[in-house]
């Protein structure tokens, strides 16, 4: 049974709570943790809320954006400088959930959720992690694949702003709004004279965690950015995914449609 809800006013205080309280876990927006608590759990007995730990806020400076871990998805939607992310944010759950869910929390939700994280990986975002021995900064895709250690807190994510129209996103869902991913595709594609000079592509809903589509990236780089080349490269996505069955789609279906949605995302179809 839950014993404590701690409300630290800073990151160091949050770290102290995490190490001193028995069975403590981090509570961000609560959209994942609270259902677990409401249904009864032995997994934790204390919650350390980040709501007042000074971790919310967005700063957009020349070319670099930093998002505090406790920033809500709605706050991201309200930030005009991040307009390129709005179509992606609009696909995540419902407006009410976005009022609660946070950017930091999104890194740790189970697939096929976590579409912001797919975007962050495509953007080459870095996570800042506060640990016992100070801070470290690592690529978001690493945080997502290997997680954080007990007592560590992701405090912010940051990324370089993509060039105009370089960011691509699509999410295949069962219904128009508030639906988890069948497959989510986010990409940053840079062209020079019609040729792909660099591509970072991330996929959600098709593996245990959001993943980089490195095979597609490799196939695309140096090629003319036309339908034929994109379509051929998109088929390479099957090498990057390991989809599973769930209530939204079968693994077979996900594999079948992933190349299609990669192509559609890249070409804006």
């Amino acid at each position: 049974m839950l014993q404590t809800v701690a409300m630290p006013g800073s990151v160091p205080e949050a770290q102290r709570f995490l190490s001193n309280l028995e069975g403590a876990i981090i509570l961000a927006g609560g959209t994942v943790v609270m259902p677990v608590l409401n249904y009864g759990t032995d997994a934790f007995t204390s919650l350390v809320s980040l709501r007042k730990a000074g971790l919310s806020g967005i700063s957009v400076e020349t070319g670099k954006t930093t998002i505090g871990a406790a920033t809500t998805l709605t706050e991201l939607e309200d930030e005009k400088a991040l307009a390129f992310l709005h179509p992606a944010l609009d696909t995540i759950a419902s407006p009410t959930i976005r009022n609660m869910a946070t950017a930091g929390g999104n890194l740790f939700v189970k697939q096929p959720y976590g579409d912001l994280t797919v975007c962050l990986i495509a953007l080459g975002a870095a996570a800042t992690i506060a640990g016992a021995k100070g801070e470290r900064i690592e690529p978001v895709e690493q945080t997502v694949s290997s997680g954080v250690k007990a007592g560590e807190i992701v405090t912010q994510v940051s990324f370089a702003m993509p060039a105009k129209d370089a960011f691509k996103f699509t999410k295949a869902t069962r219904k128009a709004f508030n639906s988890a991913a069948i497959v989510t595709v986010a990409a940053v594609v840079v062209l020079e004279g019609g040729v792909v000079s660099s591509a970072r592509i991330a996929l959600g809903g098709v593996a245990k965690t959001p993943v980089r589509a490195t095979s597609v990236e490799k196939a695309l780089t140096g090629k003319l950015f036309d339908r034929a080349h994109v379509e051929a490269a998109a088929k390479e996505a099957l090498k990057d995914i390991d989809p599973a069955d769930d209530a939204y789609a079968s693994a077979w279906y996900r594999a079948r449609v992933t190349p299609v949605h990669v192509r559609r995302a890249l070409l804006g179809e």
Partner: protein
Amino acid sequence: MKHSVVSLTINGAERQMLVAPGSTLIDVLRESQGLTGTRRGCEQGACGTCTVLVDGKTAMSCMLPVETIEGAHVETIEGLTPPQGLHPIQEAFLQGFATQCGFCTSGMIMVAAALLAKNPNPSREDVVRAISGNICRCTGYEAIIDAILDAAVRIRSAAHAEAA
């Protein structure tokens, strides 16, 4: 397990309450404040029937531990209801047959209130998007969407009449 005292402003009145760790806003509203118009549907953020406004924004009260929102302003369906008559959104739901069993209605109306405060002239798609976290198993949604659009008209014309 140590209880704590939490202060909230609920429907305009400051309230203090003694809560067990992890008590959710819905539990506090329904059990210690007697505000049973906020309905318990799924306790996992999937149905939206417990939606209230917290500092003007919609929130699912089943997923908010009250200790984490100390000092917040909470508005429920009871606070939206005027002393006399009905709020235009309530009037629109009533006239538009937008209720059947009534269980999702409070949440739908609170979502509509937040939407119309932010966007007084929403498109049909804006309304669909706004209520996309709220499940209604009876109506098929069309009457609810129509009622929210009708409420927007009612509120705008009331504001217009007041200005004139």
